[in-house]
């Protein structure tokens, strides 16, 4: 038999029991409390009724003809659309093993007959409320994630495209692994006739706050390259520091917003065959075939923090190209990663060692190698910060 006590906004309970007397009693009890009640004695109909009436909770007997309660519960839990509906076993079986079996089948609770009506009602109410909170959290989480995923699209759209990079680099790779969906690492590229600017930035923080900073940095760089200078990395850093500080109103030494970035600026000129590098903290690594790895450290100053000095001048380093140089920029999410034997940060030494062991491979295989080594070092630890590695080698001739 099945019967419905209709009504809309009330919570709905589906009761499955093979004893008519119990069904009738529960129907009365729940209806009196304002529930919509659906009852059945046929375990084969539970899935169909659940789909039809979307109950908020299911009370399930165990000893039933045809399918027993455990089987019905498993069927419900295997159904993508129904599995979230809480199931409570209501049964005379009171052995510990039965209770365990019931919980393992996916039930949220287990009540033994004879039961107290007050207790049954209290438990049902609690589980319905829990389910509601869970649904609400799920919805909020989904909304936030949808919004951040959309933000990722925007963040990705400001990154330079392959064709532009390919016209200046004979070969290159980009290893970009934000810790979360969006991140505080970014790279920026501006092509001109025979020269370019390549920038790797690592903004404080990660996730959404980090990503906001990358957008500020991105538009500020575009403005600097257009209005101030586009071939002098040290000057670019100087302007960036001044503008970011004033953008973020960072003038007082208090515990308020104090954000900034580490950033490396590479100017390359294919006609003059030279590279100029200046940096706030990030190093440039250079390899020439099998020779030792050469590291140019950046100035030990970050950009934009309230403690940074507006008068500070960054240092330019000029590299004359012989033709076989490979350049690498790496954000500190790579070298700070905790892991290894002692659960310590990898350090720049670790990065140099990895680079040394793959220095003669193609850039493409270096990318794979570095990524594998990183993941291996990280082991079971979570990624601590956003990670970017850029590797590139310049074209010998100016692009047409």
């Amino acid at each position, binding site marked *: 038999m099945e019967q419905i006590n209709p009504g809309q906004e009330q919570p709905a309970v589906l009761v499955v029991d093979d004893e008519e007397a119990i069904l009738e009693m529960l129907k009365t009890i729940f209806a009196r409390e304002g529930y919509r009640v659906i009852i059945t004695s046929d375990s084969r109909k539970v899935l169909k009724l659940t789909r039809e009436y979307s109950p908020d909770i299911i009370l399930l007997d165990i000893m039933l003809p045809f399918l027993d309660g455990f089987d019905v519960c498993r069927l419900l839990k295997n159904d993508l659309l129904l599995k979230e509906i809480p199931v409570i076993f209501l049964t005379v079986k009171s052995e510990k093993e039965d209770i365990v079996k019931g919980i393992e089948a996916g039930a949220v609770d287990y009540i033994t007959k004879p039961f107290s009506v007050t207790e049954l009602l209290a438990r049902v109410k609690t589980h319905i409320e829990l389910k509601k909170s869970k649904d609400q959290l799920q919805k909020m989480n989904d909304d936030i994630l949808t919004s951040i995923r959309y933000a990722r699209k925007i963040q990705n759209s400001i990154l330079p495209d392959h064709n532009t990079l390919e016209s200046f680099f004979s070969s290159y790779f980009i290893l970009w692994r934000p810790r979360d969906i969006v991140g505080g690492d970014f790279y920026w590229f501006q092509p001109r006739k025979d020269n370019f600017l390549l920038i790797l930035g*690592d903004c*404080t*923080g990660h*996730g959404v706050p980090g990503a906001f900073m990358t957008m500020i940095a991105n538009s500020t760089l575009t403005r600097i390259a257009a209005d101030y200078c586009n071939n002098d990395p040290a000057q670019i850093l100087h302007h960036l520091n001044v503008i970011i500080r004033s953008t973020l109103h960072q003038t007082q*030494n208090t*515990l*308020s917003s*104090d*954000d*900034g970035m*580490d950033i490396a600026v590479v100017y390359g000129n294919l006609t003059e065959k030279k590279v100029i590098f200046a940096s706030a903290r990030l190093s440039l690594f250079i390899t020439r075939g099998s020779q030792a790895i050469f590291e140019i450290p950046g100035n*030990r100053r*970050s950009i934009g*923090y309230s*403690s940074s000095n507006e008068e500070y001048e960054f240092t330019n380093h000029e590299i004359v190209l012989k033709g076989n140089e490979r350049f690498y920029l790496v954000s*500190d999410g790579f*070298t*700070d990663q*905790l892991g290894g034997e*002692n*659960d*310590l*940060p990898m*350090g*720049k*030494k670790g990065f140099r060692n990895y680079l040394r062991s793959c220095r003669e491979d193609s850039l493409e295989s270096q990318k794979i190698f570095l990524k594998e080594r990183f993941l291996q070092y990280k082991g079971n630890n979570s990624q*601590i*910060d956003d990670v970017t590695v850029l590797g590139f080698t310049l074209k010998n001739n100016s692009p047409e």
Partner: protein
Amino acid sequence: MENLTIEETKSTPRIIFDAQENILEIKGRSYPEDAMKFYKPAFDWLKEYVVALQGECTCNISLIYINTSSRKIFLMILKLLEKAHSQGNPITINWYYHPDNENAKELGEEYKEEIELPFNLIEEEA
């Protein structure tokens, strides 16, 4: 003044500031989601402490990993101690690091350069 104790978590260090013994201890990893918020109680405590301080104080720091925003706050904490030191309360910093932790060592060196305080870089036993 009351002592301050903050328990260690995966991403924040253990902080024990002892106003009776005049020993300040910070140990662990520091990469909270919001470093300002995390360090605010410690910073406020220190501000009050240095005003009342009379005599010597030792600060023991042993940090495995410190993210960028925590670094800025550590600098502010050290500046606060530097000021108290210059006003006649001898303060010593002991900066501990694991021999394989190049990052922690370099950061200690950087602070040592920047801060006018007795600053000992101490390699821990492996």
